[in-house]
């Protein structure tokens, strides 16, 4: 299978962005160096596995052919669904099969891989093999998001290739409508503007849901990623809502023997966590009815369809919602803001003690079981070259190098997105990735059934969080992390 042929598929994704980027448009500095570096790997084919997302498709469809053209090393990238990608990478590394020379590492799984020594230390490998180090590649180029992929000693174990924050989106056409503003003022006595705290947010949500009913519109006041059988809801609560109430790291204290219950020193069932849950459930109740079946995907589409006046949406979706007319009805009417939060949370985030939301993303890593490590190192550097970033950021809204923010096309896009990139650059430090737990998916799945029961109302929120905290400690004991 020639991957160039996949251009057809990528055209679907690319055509909806402002400019289409193709392999021939990319200008690489020092082509001779790449050509020479590739010579010793004649006949090598690199194989990678990743989730099928726009940033990954760009790797498969644009970067891989360009790399092959320069170096003669062919690159096959398998793009598949998230759970398949995860399972296949683990099976390959666990069994030592050596199928993959590159694997996608989601930020939340890196700690599990590091704990198992699945990954090659890229910093060390490049220091050792100076002749493989590309002239324009440097670790200093990365944004601070790369720190998520550093092991002990600060060495890099994954080359970041996508990064997003989960932000507060609102409809500028509604928020700036004079009649609506007047109606809101009359009802609440306040000016209509993006909320900075939960109380205001709820008031706005309430107002718009009523406004939708009164005017017989398909409009509600908020989104909710509240699927009753899919972990997306679990994530929205623990990564986006609980932190804004000051409950961090899922309410688990890693330094205190992984305590989760209040009794043993955790915060998973603290008063703050319970308040966060009740607030979120009350928002869910006035969100569009499909929210009980919504994962991140559906939340984004709900917003793009103009069914919500405001909501928390992953940044990777914010871009197409704001700019792609073939998929969104609210192009040009999208504003971005920081999520609403309780008092004191911002100060904690600024001082580095807390955070206000989720910084999501992923990297490509090199499994120790790979049979083509050296050639793979070349490709990993190629993905991190400053030269390829501009086109990539346009094709798929992600930024992993600091220099990319200043690229002309990126600035242009930033205006369209209501300043999303500016926010990512300036306020990115207030957001944080998943806590460094090697048991990420295991704990999530262990507690998810209780969480879903809270959503359906089978268990009350207080009691439910008590049970979840209890279950967390049991599970971590069973897994051997809690003594």
């Amino acid at each position, binding site marked *: 299978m020639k991957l160039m042929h996949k251009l057809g598929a990528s055209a679907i994704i690319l055509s909806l962005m402002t400019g289409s980027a193709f392999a021939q448009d990319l200008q690489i500095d020092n082509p001779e160096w790449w050509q020479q570096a590739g010579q010793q790997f004649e006949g090598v084919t690199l194989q990678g596995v990743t989730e099928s997302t726009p940033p990954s498709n760009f790797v498969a469809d644009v970067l891989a052919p360009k790399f092959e053209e320069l170096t003669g090393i062919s690159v096959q990238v398998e793009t598949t669904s998230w*759970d398949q990608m*995860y*399972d296949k990478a*683990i099976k390959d590394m*666990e069994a030592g099969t050596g199928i993959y020379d590159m694997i996608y590492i989601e930020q939340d799984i890196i700690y*599990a891989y590091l*704990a*198992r020594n699945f990954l090659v230390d890229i910093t060390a490998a490049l220091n050792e093999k100076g002749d493989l180090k590309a002239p324009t590649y440097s670790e200093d180029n990365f944004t601070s998001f790369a720190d998520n992929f550093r092991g002990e000693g600060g060495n890099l174990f994954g080359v970041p290739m996508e990064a997003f924050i989960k932000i507060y989106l609102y409809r500028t056409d509604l928020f700036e409508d004079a009649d609506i503003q007047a109606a809101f003022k009359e009802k609440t006595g306040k000016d209509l503007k993006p909320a900075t705290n939960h109380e205001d947010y709820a008031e706005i949500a309430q107002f718009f849901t009523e406004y939708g009913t009164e005017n017989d519109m398909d409009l509600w006041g908020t989104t909710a990623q509240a*699927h*009753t*059988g*899919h*972990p997306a809801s679990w994530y929205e609560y623990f990564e986006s809502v609980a932190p804004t109430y000051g409950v961090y790291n899922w309410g688990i204290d890693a330094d205190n023997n992984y305590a989760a219950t209040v009794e043993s020193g955790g915060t998973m069932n603290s008063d703050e966590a319970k308040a966060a849950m009740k607030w979120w459930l009350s928002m869910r109740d006035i969100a*569009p*009815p*499909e*929210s*009980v*079946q919504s994962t991140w995907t*559906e939340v984004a589409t709900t917003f793009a369809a103009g069914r919500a006046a405001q909501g928390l949406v992953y940044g990777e979706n914010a871009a197409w919602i704001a700019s792609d007319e073939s998929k969104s009805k609210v192009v040009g009417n999208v504003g971005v803001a920081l999520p609403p939060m309780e008092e004191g949370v911002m100060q904690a985030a600024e001082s580095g003690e807390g955070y206000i939301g989720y910084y999501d993303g992923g990297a490509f890593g090199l499994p120790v079981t790979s049979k083509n490590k050296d050639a793979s190192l070349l490709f990993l550097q190629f993905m991190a070259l400053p030269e390829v970033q501009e086109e990539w950021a346009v094709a798929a809204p992600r930024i992993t190098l600091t220099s990319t923010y200043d690229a002309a096309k990126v600035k242009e896009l930033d205006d369209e997105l209501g300043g999303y990139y500016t926010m990512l650059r300036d306020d990115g430090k207030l957001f944080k990735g998943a806590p460094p737990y*090697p*048991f990420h*998916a*295991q704990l*999530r*799945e*262990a507690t998810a*059934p209780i969480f*879903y*029961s809270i*959503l*359906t*109302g*089978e268990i009350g929120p207080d009691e439910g969080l008590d049970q979840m905290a209890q279950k967390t400690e049991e599970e971590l004991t*069973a*897994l*051997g*992390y809690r003594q």
Partner: protein
Amino acid sequence: MHSNRLGWLLLAPTLVILFFFGVVPFFYVLWLSFHQWNPFAANPDIVFNGADNFRALVFDAGFLASLGVTLAFVFFAVVSELIIGYALAQAFMKDFPGKAIFRTIHTLPLIMAPIIVGSIWKLMTTPSIGIIPSLLDSWFGFDLNIGTSAVAAFTVTVIMDIWHWTPLVTLTLIAALVSLPSDPFEQAQIDGANKRQIFWHITLPMIMPAVLATVFIRLMDALRTVDEVLMLTGGGPGSATRYLGVHIFKEVFPRTNYGYGSAISIIVLYLTIVACWLLYVSLIAPRNKKG
């Protein structure tokens, strides 16, 4: 009548393939079920733990709840499919214009992958934007919400399964009905038997092997349903549609609980075999021996 060597020879390729791809993996899973193994536990190694997994299983409320809803799902789905499938197969025995077209239409659901079926039904039943809740609401004022109502989600999974798999029952029963000899029926009519008598005393006994084979297949396939339900409800709301296939999937894929997941699989396999074996020895085997 002639050498059994030929018989074994004809059977050999089947036995060889099933040995390498069925029996060998089975023993691996059986072996694993007596071990604790989660590659992301503090101790990632495979550790022998005797029958601990099985002991834990007996008290595992999540597993028992899953077993319960699975049995209900299988019962409602398979019984409905059998009744509807038989009625349709009989209806196809008559001649009427356009029969070939109708038969083709009726088999269409079969050629759709479960993952597609799950997607369509999800889009048709999502609250407020799906066509079915929307029509039910405007016609009857009925609120169908598969995201909050356990009964609604359960019912939709059953209906989806009936829609998808009834054609399989119809097809296998058509094959059985067309190969029935006609003389017993003619004789019965001459003797003045009524329709119900003919059905219970002639048709049913003669097609029983095919009916049972079909029930078996549907039974075991319904017990392992994963893709469709995962796509439609994700096992929710709560754990209302977390059928065994889904439960095991979640235990093994995201949770990487390989040891415990193996134990669940072994138990499910064991229960399926026992249930089918009881049906088999009481209903099919005596007939086969006779033949």
